[in-house]
Each structure stands twice: as C-alpha cells, then as structure tokens.
C-alpha cells in the first residue's frame, strides 16, 4: 500500500492548481494526483473560454494551449440585438482566450509535476477510506487493478460529475434544479465575428441559461446551449441546440460539419458553505465553485485549487490536518471568491424571472460595462435601480438591495 502526504482526486484545473501550490509552499511534501481519465483533458466537456486575468494565477499560458485570442463578449437579447463588451477597452484592458483544453489541462498538470507532484491517470477512485470520522485515503482501480492508498489529507477536485465527495459527509451533491444541462458541438463553418464570444439569451433557445458560440479560429467554434433540466423530452438541451442553430442560421455556413459532441452539467449555485472535514477538503467545481451566471468554471477552479493548496500546505506544516486544521479554507475561499459569486447567484435568480420582453428592454437600459460588472457580482444596485422603474419587476429589486 502506498502512503502520501496528500492525495488529490481529479487532475483537472482545480486539482492541478492545488498540487502545484502545495509543492510551491513545501517541496518536501509528497503529493499524488489520481485521475480516472486515460488522457488528461479528454474528453473535453467545456466551451473552453477563459478570461486572460486567469494568468494572474497560472502564469503565462503557452501558445499551444490557446486557439484564439478574444477581445470580449457580445450578449444577444431574445430579439437578436446585442450589447458588445470589449474588455480590451475597459479598465485592465485584458481580453480572453478560447483554449484547447486537451493541451491546457495537461500543461497545468505538468506545471505541478515539474514542481515535484506525481500524477497517475487511468485511476478511478471508487471509495474514500473512512475511519472514525476521518478520511484516511482512497480505494480505486488503476489500469484494471485494485489499489489502496493512504494520505494525511485527501483533496477532492473531481468536478461536478463525480459523487465521491458525498462519502465524506459534506454536501457536495448537485441539486438538479441548480444545474444547467448542456450540449455543445465543436463544428466548422462558423461565420460569427471571431474577435468575440457570443452569448444568446431567450426562452425559445435556452430557458434560464444561454446559447453560445466560442470561436476557435478558421471558422471552427464551440457551439452549445445550457438549459434548466426539464422532465419534458421535448425540452432537452439537444432540442434547444437545434432551435438555436436555426434561429441564428446566419452565423453558420449551413453545412453542419460537427467534429465533436460534448455534454455535461454546470452547477449554477448552491456554493458550498463547509468544504472540509477531518483529513479532507473539496475544491473546484466539485464544491460548485462556478460562476452562476455564465457557468465559467475554469478560472474559479484554478483559484479555488490554489487557495486549497495554501491551506493544505499550512495544515501539514502545523501537523494538524483535522477539520479544525483545514477549516481556514472556508472563510478564505468565501472572502476571495464566494461573496462575489453569491452576488452573481442573486443576479441569476433575478434574471431567471425575466420575460423575453424584459430582456429585450434591458439591452436598452444597460451599458457594456454593466454587463462585465454583473458577471463579476458587482454593482447590483445599478440593476436594482432599473428594476424599480418597471412596476412588473419592482419586486425583484428587493433581492438585490
């Protein structure tokens, strides 16, 4: 049986960032990342959009992991009119990227490995070893063989798909009403402006969520929708995706060359309050650390993983990896990210109540800067003021004030 200081389950952006941070803080620690995938980053379940500001945390992203540099976003109201937020013209002046996550995820893991962490793919972790209220390690299957490994701390960064975290007793479970279900095609023949990502709103194409075109260059784009789950088989993400392709047919060459079909869910709320227990910590999308409006989870996973790495390294330094020893992760994450994301969630709750007409009207009332502020959970008062002017929406203003 193997023993490590830290086992990290899931070598996505959260897990890899956590491993790298632990090694940076204390290179003498032994850190093992297990991932069920046969190839890190594959299959891609993502639109691959990332704001450039993420490089404050990762350092410069290598060119080979970037498909397209993006200036900002166009957000389309249900009637087709759009607001353009050119981030290069705003404070900070930085745009974003559409990545190649098959390369990006491997690069992040490699950065951790360069610092001394170890990674083992094709290892499905099936169980946490729970002893007297402590998590002491994991059991799993590595390339067909059963494995058992013990550690002082187990970090769960398994993304939204996994149920492993539930075995710790923490509330990692994604409630169905608080996830969006998504379908995405990587396709050729996109005619949309490649300097921007395109986000389309409307109950006819994406109830509660939105539809998107994220250009990867040369007319290749990630094209998808995320919608609220519904028991009606006529309201699946796939059906909305096809409606979207029809409604915005002018953005495609009509040849339907689809190179990849991806699906998945994104948590859009229910940010976890308590993310640690004895010998265990959950971070990234597994802890629902995702922007509840636009579903962006890569940067949130990186920040969450890094903060988790700081806390785990600190706890090991003090030789206290009990719930108490790890508990500083809760206030730390909430201070750095949680309070912003909770504001974004409030906005999402308000937008959810809007009719298509309200959304159309909003395009007239907002500036591009407002859009960026909202996506960061700032200036909620601006929206509240607009709502107060409309008798039908006044009741929603309360939520924001």
């Amino acid at each position, binding site marked *: 049986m193997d023993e490590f200081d830290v086992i990290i389950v899931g070598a996505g952006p959260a897990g890899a960032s956590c491993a790298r941070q632990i090694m940076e803080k204390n290179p003498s620690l032994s850190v093992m990342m297990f991932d069920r995938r046969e190839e890190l980053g594959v*299959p891609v*379940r993502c639109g691959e959009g990332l704001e450039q500001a993420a490089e404050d945390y990762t350092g410069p992203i290598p060119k080979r992991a970037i498909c397209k540099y993006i200036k900002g976003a166009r957000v389309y109201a249900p009637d087709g009119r759009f607001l353009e937020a050119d981030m290069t013209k705003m404070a900070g002046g930085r745009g974003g990227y559409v990545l190649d996550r098959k390369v990006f995820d491997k690069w992040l893991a490699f950065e951790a490995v360069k610092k001394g962490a170890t990674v083992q793919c094709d290892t*499905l972790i*099936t*169980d946490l070893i729970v002893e007297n209220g402590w998590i002491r390690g994991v059991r799993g299957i590595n390339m067909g063989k059963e494995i058992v490994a013990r550690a002082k701390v187990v970090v769960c960064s398994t993304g*939204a*798909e*996994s*149920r492993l975290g*539930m075995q710790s007793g923490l509330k990692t*479970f*994604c*409630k*169905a*009403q608080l*996830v969006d*279900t*998504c*379908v995405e095609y990587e396709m050729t023949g996109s005619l949309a402006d490649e300097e921007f990502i395109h986000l389309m709103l409307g109950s006819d194409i994406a109830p509660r969520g939105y539809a998107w075109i994220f250009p990867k260059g040369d007319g290749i784009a990630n094209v998808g929708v995320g919608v*609220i*789950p*519904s*028991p009606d*088989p006529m309201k*699946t*993400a*796939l*059906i909305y995706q096809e409606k979207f392709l029809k409604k915005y047919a002018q953005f495609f060459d009509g040849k339907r060359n689809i190179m990849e*079909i*991806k*699906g*998945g*869910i994104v948590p859009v709320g229910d940010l976890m309050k308590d993310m640690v227990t004895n010998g265990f910590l959950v971070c990234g999308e597994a802890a629902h650390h995702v922007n509840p409006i636009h579903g962006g989870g890569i940067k949130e996973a990186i920040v969450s993983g890094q903060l988790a790495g700081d806390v785990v390294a600190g706890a090991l330094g003090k030789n206290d990896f009990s719930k108490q020893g790890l508990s500083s992760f809760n206030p730390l994450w909430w201070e750095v990210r949680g309070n912003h994301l909770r504001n974004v969630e409030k906005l999402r709750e308000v937008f959810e109540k809007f009719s298509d007409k309200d959304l159309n009207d909003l395009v007239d009332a907002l500036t591009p800067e407002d859009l960026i502020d909202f996506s960061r959970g700032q200036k909620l008062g601006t929206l509240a003021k607009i709502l107060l002017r409309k008798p039908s929406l006044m009741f929603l203003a309360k939520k924001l004030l």
Partner: protein
Amino acid sequence: MSVGVFNLDIKGNKWDLDREKCIKCGACVAVCPFTALELPEFPEVNEKCIFCNICAMACPVDAIKVVKTNKSAVVDKSTKDISTLSKM
C-alpha cells in the same frame, strides 16, 4: 461499488438507457440523489434507484427513460426536494 446494468425493471418500474443516444457525459450520474448511477463508460443503474426521473431530466439528449407505475415496489425515499422537482 454496486453492480450496475443498463436496464432495470422492479415490478413494473423501469429505468432504460438508450446507448445509441447517450453521449457519455455523466450529467445523469451527477444529479442522481441516491447514487444509483455509476459511469464506468455508459451510465449504469443499480438497485438503489427509486425511479424519480431526475437523471432523465438532466440528460441533455433524452437517452434515459424512467417509468414509475408501481409506487409500492420501491422504498419511497422521496424528499420534499424531489417532489417539487418532478412537478417542474
């Protein structure tokens, strides 16, 4: 790990996966409140399933069919959460 199958039939209550439609995305596994699904490759259901239909709701491509005709055949572990959901 419980042993999973692609089709479950407990006294007329059914859970069926259409493997032709399934794109192996794992959405169903993530939302099942009873850890009744595992995703070795395709999702597999086990006897913990209470036929609540939540996985089918989250499936982006309508690959899961759940039929619940016999309410007494399964231990009803429904929570308030689930009863409100199935009305959505």
